[in-house]
């Protein structure tokens, strides 16, 4: 079962490259044959010369980041990107979601679909797609949303898991809140699951737990890749009966799960907690079968209408992950994202109320109506999550 990754925009391409790096090094170890082979089959394909090429399509509106990622991949020696699997233009999107969604996306639709199709044809069995993007920029968010829509149209029965990188609250791009609102509102309808990494949270991990002084985007990306790989690498699900679950996306992704993870086994601290819709706990490493996970089944953290037995999924893998003796990843569909989402929508709304920068969007075909629709749907999401406790 294979997964095709679509890396979109600067962030998507950088994170994607780090992800493949982590996965390939993790699968390197020869001791764990099944694990390695499943992992390799999932993310790479083997060429006639024995090289591993990533099952990925790289899309960006400027060539710099793609070239950089491809070079870094080739330098690693373990894997690389296929020569023809990238698509880039010269001019960029100017951080304008409307430009990406209405103009550049449709313009380059055929080329990108062709690349994806070729990648899909190389797969024996297609498990699904993972578009990776940031929600704040122009290419990743705008073109990314359009590409997700195309994937949905062309492969209606495939799983689409969007990996989103959330910008810093005090972010670099002034219209990032507009871009984020528009992206999320559209992806809510299109995607099967949204997996979100917040730059702020990852930054905190870097500074507090990894004790890094100068935190660069590369560090952030590595942490993100590590967490993501922790989710996507093979694991034993309850119904896989001892073999690695073929489908890595075989969990009940319902709505928007943001991950909170730790480098070591951790337990969820009660008090000031967020109510969860559903949780996925993935344990890897030593003593995985004897781990005490009762804390996660506390009914207090779940909603009343979904019993903990259904809401909690537990995956285990005795194989240590990424040189950690023990590791745990928690993917949570809960109110944890409520605050950042609320903040973001509020800021976007304040800007919208004074119609700041709207003309740049209207210029490319996104009207105020579209903005209002997006705001409405996100408000609905926020209110549903806010009422989760009952």
């Amino acid at each position, binding site marked *: *079962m294979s997964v095709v990754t679509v890396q979109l925009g600067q962030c998507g391409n950088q994170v994607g490259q780090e992800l493949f790096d982590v996965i390939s090094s993790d699968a390197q170890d020869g001791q764990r044959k099944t694990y390695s082979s499943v992992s390799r089959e999932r993310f790479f394909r083997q060429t006639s010369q024995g090289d591993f090429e990533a099952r990925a399509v790289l899309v960006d509106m400027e060539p710099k980041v793609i070239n950089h990622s491809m070079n870094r991949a080739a330098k690693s020696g373990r894997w690389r990107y296929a020569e023809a699997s990238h698509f880039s233009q010269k001019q960029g999107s100017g951080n304008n979601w409307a430009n990406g969604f209405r103009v550049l996306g449709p313009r380059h639709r055929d080329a990108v679909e062709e690349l994806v199709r070729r990648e899909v044809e190389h797969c024996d*069995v297609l498990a699904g797609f993972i578009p990776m993007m940031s929600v704040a920029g122009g290419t990743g968010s705008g073109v990314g949303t359009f590409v997700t829509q195309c994937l949905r149209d062309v492969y209606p029965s495939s799983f689409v898991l969007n990996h989103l990188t959330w910008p810093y609250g005090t972010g670099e791009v002034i219209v990032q809140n507009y871009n984020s609102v528009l992206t999320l509102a559209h992806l809510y309808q299109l995607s099967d699951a949204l997996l979100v990494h917040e730059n702020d949270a990852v930054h905190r991990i870097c500074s507090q737990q990894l004790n890094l002084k100068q935190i660069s985007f590369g560090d952030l990306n590595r942490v993100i890749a590590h967490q993501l790989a922790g989710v996507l690498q093979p694991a034993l699900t309850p119904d896989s009966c001892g073999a690695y679950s073929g*489908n890595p996306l075989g969990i009940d992704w319902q709505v928007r799960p943001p991950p909170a993870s730790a480098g070591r086994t951790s337990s969820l601290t009660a008090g000031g907690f967020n109510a969860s819709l559903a949780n996925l706990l993935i344990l890897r490493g030593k003593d995985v079968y004897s781990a005490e996970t009762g804390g996660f089944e506390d009914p207090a953290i779940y*909603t009343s*209408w*979904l019993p903990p037995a259904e809401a909690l999924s537990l995956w285990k893998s005795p194989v240590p992950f990424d040189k950690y003796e023990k590791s745990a990843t928690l993917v949570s569909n809960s109110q944890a994202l409520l605050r950042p989402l609320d903040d973001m929508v509020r800021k976007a709304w304040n800007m919208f109320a004074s119609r700041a920068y709207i003309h740049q969007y209207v210029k490319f075909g996104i009207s105020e109506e579209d903005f209002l629709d997006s705001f409405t749907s996100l408000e609905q999401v926020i209110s549903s999550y806010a009422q989760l406790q009952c």
Partner: protein
Amino acid sequence: MQRSKAAAGVEVKRVIGALCRLLAALGLDPVPAPEAFRRAKFGGRPEGDPFWQLLSSILHMSGIISSETSSQLRGELRKLVAAGLWQSGYHADWIYGADAGSFCSRDLLLALGWLLAKGVLETLLAGRVEQLDQTLLSSAPEKPEFSADLELDAASLRRLQWLMGHLRHRGRTLLSTIGARTRALHEVLSSSQVCSAAPSAGRSSAALTEDCFSLQQLCELLDAYVSWKQVEKVFWTWMDSVADRRLCDLRDRTSSQGVSHSLGACHQGKQRLEEMLRGPAQQQDVKSGDADWAVASLPPSLSSRLSAPSVHQMCRARLQAEQRLRRPSEGPHGGAAAPGELPAPQAAQLLLQAETELLQRRDRRRLANRKQLQGLMGSLDQQVFIAL
């Protein structure tokens, strides 16, 4: 002439054969033979049983007649068929029991044509395909029975949404697992050297043969439908000829009953038309002095007489055509236009001209009425005109 007629006859027989094949594949036994169709066209026994049965089974299967009605009227095929046809919108005289003497199997043929035109074949096809094709999921779900006192609270709604998503997800996982299994099976089968006969487990083979049989039937049905569709046009031209025959028959019969009767009816119609054209001119004089809005808002009417000759000529042409039918022995002489008669194209042209003239007159009248209305409004002060 004879050869082409014969060829046409063979063609028609083939077409009707296709229809019979389709009806048989749809499970409507018994189906009359194509010969029976041809005989029916030329007015066979009115008690032609196969057609009654055919019509009744069509009506029953396509759901036009409910099963209760059919069980009530089990013995009386005629009533059943009449009820069903009336239900489907076919109002023929013989259904109402009138004109019993002229009823023949041609009428049944026409009724069948009506049902076919209504699309009953497609309905039957859809039903039968659903029966035969095991892999189809039932398209329209049964109307869910909702109890009146269903409490919908937010929690159960949410749980429902969750379950829906869960189900959808499981379905997708299942699809991909099946795909993987197929792939593995393919690998196994392609790599194995020995192709042994498939071990037939005793239980499953019966089901398989059943499946096989229904698939075969399905294929036959679809085949029959496609071949029917290809020749359908010929069938309708043949049906036209049946209808024409019936019309001639009718005219013959009615004309033999009383020429004056029908002509008189035509004359009455003409007189009424003239009255209508003349009448409004008188009404208009009444309107002009009246301040009553109700009268003023009468629909615009013709103020001048239509050139009556053209209408008269049309009527006369039709009557002449009828007379000609009664005297088929006249042959080519009937083609010459008698004085006062109009051949059809000229009559049509005249009528079109008359129509445009009338429309123009109507518009002018409308304009005049509107001006009149405005004048009236102006004259009445302290009153407001509210248009509805």
